[in-house]
């Protein structure tokens, strides 16, 4: 792929946790960025050879082509149930699910709640972009009040469609959930904080402490009708107002941020 020139020191390159495949995501979509963070975290923890990822249904359905690790593709919303089986069958494996908000917060709400309640020793990477991306920008359980989508063109009306679900806060009430945090990727600083959060979440699993989840506010320039930069800014302003950033729950006892 890229040319390596003479003896210059490479200070940034593609993680061994990613394949060389070209990702299908829309220009400016942060799925690819988050894939990179997950891959780098697994590489730094030196667990690439014993990690099993579970793909969702949604934009990230083809993530098995992009992660250079063992992957399973689950039915819509069922990734935590599949991950439960993988983890219990092979306890030494590092098992994570990678799910969007349509997959996790809508059809998969039962699976995620009970996986957290059981304290399954899995890690969930939860991508919240406040709508259904792959199917055409429809309203999701996480859509903000007043947000226009293709099925709420005048903005989400709470009298008709109810209120957005704060998944992290909801799951934090369960004793089986050990580490839950909400992060964003709207700036270099936020990206680095997200990577630290992912590392903590996977470490919780490696230490056998219980269920961990990292919610990441992600952008959808295509269905928000914004430029990639505007969309990233919106994650840290509009979305973060509804979904406050930071650690929601941490009972690991290690005082991580």
């Amino acid at each position: 792929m890229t040319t390596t020139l003479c003896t210059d020191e490479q200070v940034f390159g593609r993680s061994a946790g990613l394949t060389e495949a070209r990702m299908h995501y829309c220009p400016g979509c942060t799925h690819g960025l988050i894939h990179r963070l997950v891959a780098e975290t697994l590489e730094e923890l030196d667990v690439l050879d014993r990690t099993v990822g579970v793909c969702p249904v949604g934009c990230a359905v083809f993530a098995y082509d992009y992660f250079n690790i063992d992957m399973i593709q689950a039915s819509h919303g069922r990734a935590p149930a599949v991950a439960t089986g993988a983890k219990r069958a092979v306890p030494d494996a590092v098992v994570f699910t990678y799910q969007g908000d349509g997959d996790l917060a809508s059809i998969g709400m039962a699976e995620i709640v009970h996986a957290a309640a059981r304290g399954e020793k899995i890690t969930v990477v939860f991508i919240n972009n406040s709508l259904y991306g792959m199917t055409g920008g429809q309203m999701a359980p996480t859509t903000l009040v007043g947000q226009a989508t293709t099925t709420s063109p005048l903005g989400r009306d709470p009298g008709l469609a109810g209120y957005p679900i704060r998944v992290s806060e909801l799951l934090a009430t369960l004793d089986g959930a050990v580490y839950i945090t909400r992060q964003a990727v709207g700036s270099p600083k936020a990206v680095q904080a997200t990577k630290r959060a992912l590392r903590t979440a996977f470490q919780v699993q490696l230490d056998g402490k219980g269920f961990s989840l990292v919610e990441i506010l992600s952008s959808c320039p295509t269905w928000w009708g914004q430029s990639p930069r505007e969309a990233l800014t919106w994650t840290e302003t509009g979305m973060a107002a509804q979904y406050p950033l930071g650690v929601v729950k941490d009972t690991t006892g290690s005082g991580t941020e």
Partner: protein
Amino acid sequence: MAYVVINKERCKACLLCTEFCPRQCLGVDAQMNSRGFHSAALLHPEKCTGCRICALMCPDVCIDVYREAKAEPVGGKAKA
């Protein structure tokens, strides 16, 4: 001195790298790639410090960052 190598075939021209580059080193390539995107390009290599912010924000992981090896003492670069 530092520089970036952009995989232009993988780039989808979202241009987040150009938006976030603190020294405005990056711009748009004059040529299209095979997918029809005018990819990002290093237009001002002399300003690049290898800070990695472009690579940190690239959603398609198409930027590699290099820092030039320090020259040997004989006739080496004096600039700190």
